[in-house]
């Protein structure tokens, strides 16, 4: 299984190089549904992929389904309403929960005299002695898990209201897509709106064969992971908490993909970064900035040198050997980063 995760391609185009590194011949399937109405504006992408692209046009296919399958269209709209309501409640709970974490972190830091969050075991101050930070973070994980469980139920309701397998138009598109994928030597997933991309992937039941090499960046890279986490610390409404949005395709395991990390995360706020790393401590929070190119190991693990957030709030290179850096051997067992104090 060959998978390459790239940084954003807007300012530093590395997709062509990555494709050549795969050494495969034949057409390259592309999924750029995240570009939404610009899905067909593919001149630059075609050039980068050396004219080998076979665009699957999932966004346009989605609208074709909505136009032709009234039952699905109505169910999808109802699902969006319910999902929006769920997200609204999730954000409410999440914000309160995260505020609690930050309050505890501040108290712990103040009482321990440390400059940033410390691992509970390493803390000597009174505030850290009670396991308050870990327990507060566990509360956030509980909210994340609640949301994920509720979302799963919503999907079940959607499937019951409009079974995707019984729709003729969906089946027709799925057939075309499967045939196209079968003929391709590689698959490219671009960036864009990750919500739109995930909806399209789910609607057309995209399953990527293990043997099909994949190159993905930005939203595409997020979609390959097990759990898609949204984040943006510099939005106009101010820093918003990272939120678990949906399940991804699960091809890339043990990873929270963070495209545009330098542009979107307050990486200089060690406390904030530390809380994020601890919240997703069962996975590696991987920074995918401009120029990043990570070819995963055949087992799907991160390679040496991957830049990740440590639970000390600092950025580490995987296997870099620094005191806070997890070893490369821990890449497929992310809890290994617990060594970071």
């Amino acid at each position, binding site marked *: 299984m060959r998978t390459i995760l790239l940084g954003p391609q807007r300012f530093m185009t590395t997709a062509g190089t990555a494709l050549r590194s795969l050494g495969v011949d034949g057409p390259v399937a592309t999924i750029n549904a995240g570009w939404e109405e610009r899905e067909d504006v593919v001149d630059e992408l075609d050039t980068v992929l050396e004219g080998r692209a076979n665009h699957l046009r999932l966004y346009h296919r989605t609208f074709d389904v*909505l136009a032709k399958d009234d039952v699905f269209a109505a169910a999808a709209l109802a699902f969006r309403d319910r999902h929006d*309501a769920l997200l609204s409640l999730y954000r409410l709970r999440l914000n309160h929960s995260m505020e609690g974490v930050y309050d505890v972190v501040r108290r712990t830091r103040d009482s321990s005299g440390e400059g940033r969050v410390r691992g509970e075991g390493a803390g000597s101050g009174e505030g850290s002695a009670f396991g308050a930070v870990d327990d507060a973070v566990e509360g956030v994980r509980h909210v994340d898990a609640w949301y994920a469980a509720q979302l799963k139920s919503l999907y079940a309701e959607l499937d019951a209201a409009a079974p995707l397998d019984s729709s003729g138009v969906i089946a027709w598109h799925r057939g075309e897509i499967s045939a196209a994928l079968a003929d391709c030597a590689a698959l490219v997933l671009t*960036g864009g709106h990750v919500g739109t991309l995930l909806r399209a992937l789910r609607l057309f039941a995209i399953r990527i064969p293990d043997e099909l090499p994949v190159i993905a960046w930005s939203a595409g890279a997020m979609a390959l992971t097990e759990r898609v986490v949204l984040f943006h610390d510099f*939005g*106009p409404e101010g820093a918003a908490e990272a939120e678990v949005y949906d399940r991804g395709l699960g091809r890339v395991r043990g990873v929270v993909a963070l*495209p545009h990390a330098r542009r979107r995360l307050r990486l200089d706020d060690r406390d904030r970064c530390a809380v994020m790393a601890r919240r997703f401590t069962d996975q590696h929070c991987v920074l995918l900035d401009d120029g990043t190119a990570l070819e995963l190991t055949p087992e799907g693990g991160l390679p040496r040198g991957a830049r990740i957030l440590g639970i000390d709030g600092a950025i580490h290179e995987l296997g870099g050997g620094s005191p806070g850096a997890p070893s490369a051997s821990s890449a497929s067992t992310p809890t290994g980063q617990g060594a970071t104090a």
Partner: protein
Amino acid sequence: MNERRLAVNRLRERLPVDGAAIDRFLARHPSPVVEGERATFLFRGDADEVRVRHRVVGLADPLPMKRLPDTDLWAVTTTLPSGSRVEYQLETRRGEHYETFNDPLNPKVAHSPMGSSSVCAATGYEVPDWVHHDPEARQGEMVEDVLRSKALRREQPVRLYLPARYTAAQRYPLLVVHDGTDYLDYAAMKTVLDNLIHRLDVAPVVVAFVPPRDRLKEYPNHAPHARFIARELVPRLAERFSLVDDPQGRCLMGSSFGGIASLSTAVRYPGEFGSLLLQSASMVFTDIGSDHGGGPYFDPVVKFVNRYRARPSRPVDRIFMSCGTYEPLITPNRSMVPVFRQAGMTVRYVEARDGHNWEDWRDRLRDGLSWIFPGPQKFVYE
């Protein structure tokens, strides 16, 4: 800025000077002359008195100018903290004749339904780039509509904004804007919406711009107005457009008396709307007695706000409030923040060094709209 180093004081040190020297001074120093946190207002001409008229709380109004000896140049210097933006006019007295007009030496002018004013922008103030037309931004569509209102007993015009690429396959939040025509004309709100939606700062939203007929009567807690908004306008729009069918997707917005109209409508119809966007809302109140100093038009406002403060309710979940620190309403607005919070609402409160005017409200639109209806930035990773 050292007083002696101010441009006008350097000119004073060179007195007497001839008219040509003053010409050169004015050519070199656009009026008002902003130097550090000081602004010098200038006027050239014959008069018995010249004064700067403004409504900045904390500064003397009027602000008398002094003639530089043996010249026809008048000047006054005042403090102007970084980031400030002040609207003003000049007033001259010649004998018994008073005249008020925009600063002839200053081309910067702001417009409002009451006319225009000159603008003095301090260091640090910049017009946000998202208020200007952006050719890259897709244009929303404006639709003229007229509703036959039983509540108001008249035909009520409404201008509707549909975001670019509006489609019935999605649902949209609804924003109802009081003084809607003024927001379009004086706060560039159509352009602002186009730009902020294009930049993903604000979610695509359907907006109803509602102009009043008699705002001083209809806006301060007026039952027919509230009924029109909640029971006629919103249901009509929900029938016509694909709107979010949830209070969270409905927001009332307004400035000054329009803020009171928004709040009082929400109080009369609790649970109908999820949020309010209040800009310099006229939330005048008294703690004892009825001498509020606002004149008879404020009587119903004070009555409403006093009653609300006595028994605060929670008509919405979230309130965005903004107010200029230089306007008289700053104290009432600051005072209402804890009242709303104690009633259980989430409040985002923003202040700016500006006054009670449309460009202040325009400049705060990004803060308010992106908080009420956040755009999909969090979802987009190009």
